[in-house]
């Protein structure tokens, strides 16, 4: 069975800088894949090569078995939103979707019906005749998502669809994406948002510095890597070096860091031992204020894969 998206030994360089290096990736039919990675990892570059905005330095990409260099045929069943594109500010959503529809072969009364469906799906029907220039960023994002949905595509490729949105906007877009799931529709979404991946996607590929470092089913990944937990602890008095040394010698603690005078984090390779930590804190005459698990299991996994220096890139 042909895969939805195939990336074979893809390399893309810009002069002496290699953004994507020898990447292999597959998105199966019906798969919702999250492409995860810090800023500058090469996610957008990869998506741009797949959608024809960039040409590969070496390697190939194909969609439904069609080489992406045959741009017209490859993109026929693909809807995509890459790099926060803009719509003409003087156009209304109806006009934009009508234009896109005609380019995709949707004409006649079927066009109006399809525009209505799509605007309903992205919850923009009541704004259909207002100029896009007056919309908020979230509304514009939904219109660009709408144009991607116009041909009822088999494959959706989205580059950070919730980027720049407020929390409400993010939730709305995520709900829309979840609502799009159906048999044999495939999704490739690049994102920083780990909870987006865990909510929407069923598989994830992690990319760092232009290379894939992990690709697996989300549930399977979490099952294999249970216990990568980070605890964040606040105490009322000053933390001593003696305490930190004891913490680092604690069972299953792979890393411990004093974040400030009154707080520390401890990362466990296996199951966390909260009771043990509480006991250790008491033994060193520290008064416990709060103890929280920092981030999700997936976040912890991501951090462990991409390294501490990338932690600021995730939200």
């Amino acid at each position, binding site marked *: 069975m*042909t895969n939805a998206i195939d990336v074979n030994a893809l390399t893309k360089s810009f002069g002496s800088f290699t953004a994507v290096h020898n990447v292999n990736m597959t998105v199966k*039919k019906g798969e919702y894949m999250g492409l995860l990675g810090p800023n500058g990892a090469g996610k957008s570059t990869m998506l*741009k090569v797949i*959608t*024809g*905005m*960039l*040409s590969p330095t070496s390697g190939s990409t194909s969609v*439904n*078995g*069609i*080489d992406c260099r*045959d*741009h*017209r*045929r*490859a*993109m*026929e*069943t*693909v809807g*995509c939103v*890459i*790099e*926060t*594109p*803009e*719509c*003409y500010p*003087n*156009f209304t959503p109806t*006009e934009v979707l009508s*234009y*896109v529809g*005609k*380019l*995709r*072969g*949707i*004409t006649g009364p079927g066009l109006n019906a399809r525009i209505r469906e799509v605007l309903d799906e992205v919850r923009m029907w009541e704004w259909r005749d207002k100029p896009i220039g007056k919309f908020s960023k979230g509304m514009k994002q939904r219109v*660009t998502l709408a*144009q991607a949905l116009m*041909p*009822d595509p*088999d494959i959706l490729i989205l580059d950070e669809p919730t980027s720049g949105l407020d929390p409400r906007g993010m939730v709305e877009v995520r709900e829309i994406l979840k609502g799009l799931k159906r*048999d*044999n*529709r495939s999704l490739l979404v690049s994102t920083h948002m780990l909870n987006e991946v865990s909510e929407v996607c069923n598989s994830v590929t992690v990319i760092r510095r232009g290379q894939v470092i992990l690709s697996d089913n989300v549930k399977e990944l979490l099952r294999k890597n249970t216990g990568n937990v980070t605890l964040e602890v606040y105490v009322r008095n000053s933390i001593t070096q003696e305490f930190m040394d004891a913490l680092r010698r604690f069972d299953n603690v792979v890393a411990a860091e004093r974040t400030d005078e009154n707080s520390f984090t401890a990362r466990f390779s296996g199951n966390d031992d909260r009771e043990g930590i509480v006991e250790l804190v008491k033994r060193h005459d520290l008064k416990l204020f709060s103890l929280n698990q920092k981030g999700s299991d997936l976040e912890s996994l991501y951090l462990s894969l991409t390294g501490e220096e990338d932690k600021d890139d995730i939200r």
Partner: protein
Amino acid sequence: MTSDEAAIASNDAAHAAVPGRNYKLPSDIDQLMAVFGAQMRLYSKSKIVIGFIIIALVIPILVYSGAAETIIKGAADASPSPSYLLILLPLFIIAIPAMMAGRILSSEFRNRTAYLLFTLPVSRHIYYFGKFLAAFVLSAGVFAMAYAFAVICGSGYGLSYPNDVLGSFVMCTAGVFALTAMAYGLSTYFKNGSTGLVIAIMIFLPFIVLILKALTGDIGFFNPDYTGSVWDPLMTLPPFTGYQALYMIDHGVGGMFLGELYSTFLGPYSTVVYVAVSMIWGVLFLLLGMLNVNKKEL
């Protein structure tokens, strides 16, 4: 099965797996017309375009109210002039295309609307030529309107060479094509478009030719023995189209000093030569822009 057949087969298989919709891509011509129509719609919302149309429409009012005569007559020469406003023809030929076509593509890249369009299943050259077609049709239309009114009004001043008027119009239309293509093709190379550059080139190129002719003593105005110059072929280039068109209908281009100079030593070539040079000029610039758009990485 060839690779093409395999691709089509897998494409059809992909569609077949999805119940319901099957949208087939339209032909290149249909997509070209969709791009053309969208660009026309964009133009209809543009203040520059509406402004030009209004200027063209008020020409008869300016002429019959005497305003044109009052403004320009002082600069016009004593001999009857078909229409005072035809003096502006050389500038119209330059300004209209430069402003209509000089910013279309650069604004698409700058405002990121290209990021939406270039991911659609449409070849880049369809976008390119669809938008150009709209730019040319509208530039030619606006110019034709201005020229039409100037000629209609000019009939009151004794403009009576209809075949030459038709030839002059054909030459001007070719000039509009050349300059629209030049502005459009060059705009792909500049972030802010090519309007200013095109206007500057079109204004200064005649000066350069003038200087070249002066250096070789070939200016007819000063040299009664003038019989032609090695630089004459340069005067078939689009910047001279407007002057040649006016020369053709025996218009003295008024008191514009440079216009007088041009009219005295415009080359003795036929309309066909001017039209052919304009077409070649336009096609070359179109191809130049097409090459840039094809290799552009977003």
